[in-house]
């Protein structure tokens, strides 16, 4: 389908984005150091942003880079460095015997089934332009009008969600004097890490 109108640059951009997306994703899973996983995650997120631009979702591509690569991954890196867990994970021990082969088989079956199901259904079907028709030259305007009219209630609900998330993160990360006694901390004897983590709450993502 659409074979006649497909051009070489389009295919090249698609292949580049797919390679960056899948290569980064494999890197996230196989990297033993959490920092390397986070760097590979950035590659995947930028590849997804490239795929968004290729499909005329320019605003979402910008948001993808700013929010995901700029805020969420930085928050991951911040927590990794904050906790000092940037060590290599011990991968030789397999706590649950046969977990990895079974996981690979299960994921293979699910992914293969997903692709087969989509292919059997003709990849996509349904009514066109129900909410509002897209306009590749004005995707910000169309998206903004849709969010502030059709999805206004959901948009307002997200503001509440973000406030709850920030308050919850602050409450979780806050260190109260009572919590020191309640929490069973075997490495509490030196008290070194406790003084260091006093005020820094990882609630800056919202």
């Amino acid at each position, binding site marked *: 389908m659409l074979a006649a109108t497909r051009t070489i640059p389009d295919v090249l951009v698609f292949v580049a984005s797919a390679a960056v997306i899948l290569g980064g994703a494999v890197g996230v899973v196989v990297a033993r150091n959490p920092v390397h996983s986070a760097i590979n995650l950035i590659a995947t997120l930028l590849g997804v942003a490239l795929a968004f631009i290729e499909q005329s979702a320019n605003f979402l591509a910008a948001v993808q880079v700013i929010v*995901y690569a700029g805020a969420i991954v930085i928050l991951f890196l911040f927590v990794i460095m904050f906790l000092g867990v940037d060590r290599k994970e011990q991968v030789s021990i397999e706590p649950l015997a046969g977990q990895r082969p079974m996981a690979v088989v299960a*994921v293979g079956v699910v*992914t293969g089934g997903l692709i087969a199901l989509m292919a059997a259904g003709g990849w996509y079907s349904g*009514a066109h332009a129900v909410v509002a028709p*897209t306009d590749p030259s004005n995707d910000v305007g169309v998206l903004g009008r*849709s969010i502030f009219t059709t999805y206004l209630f959901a948009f307002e609900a997200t503001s509440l969600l973000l406030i709850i998330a*920030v308050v919850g993160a602050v409450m979780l990360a806050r260190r109260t004097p009572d919590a020191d006694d309640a929490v069973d901390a075997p490495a509490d004897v030196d008290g070194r890490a406790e003084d260091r983590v006093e005020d820094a709450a*990882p609630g800056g993502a919202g």
Partner: protein
Amino acid sequence: MTIPASWYLVVSALLFGIGALGVLVRRNALVIFMCIELMLNAANLALVTYSRVLGDVGGQATVFFVLVVAAAEVTVGLGIVVYIFRARRSTIVDDVAEMEG
């Protein structure tokens, strides 16, 4: 823009599979969170693709909300990781097995 939707949907399915595999095999809570982000991105890619081929901006609006939910999820999730790390000195999920189940 003329790439068929099926190509993107296959990439999206593969990305989702890799993310699910990571959640199943990794033991570091932080890496498990990153793999959840991979799965959310796979869903976003599929939504944008459907938005393009159906000419409906609803898919893009949904991606917008998924981004907000992902930000909230990471904020609270990492707060929980920090809290557990203080109690257990570890971010390995197997170390948090108090119920011995």
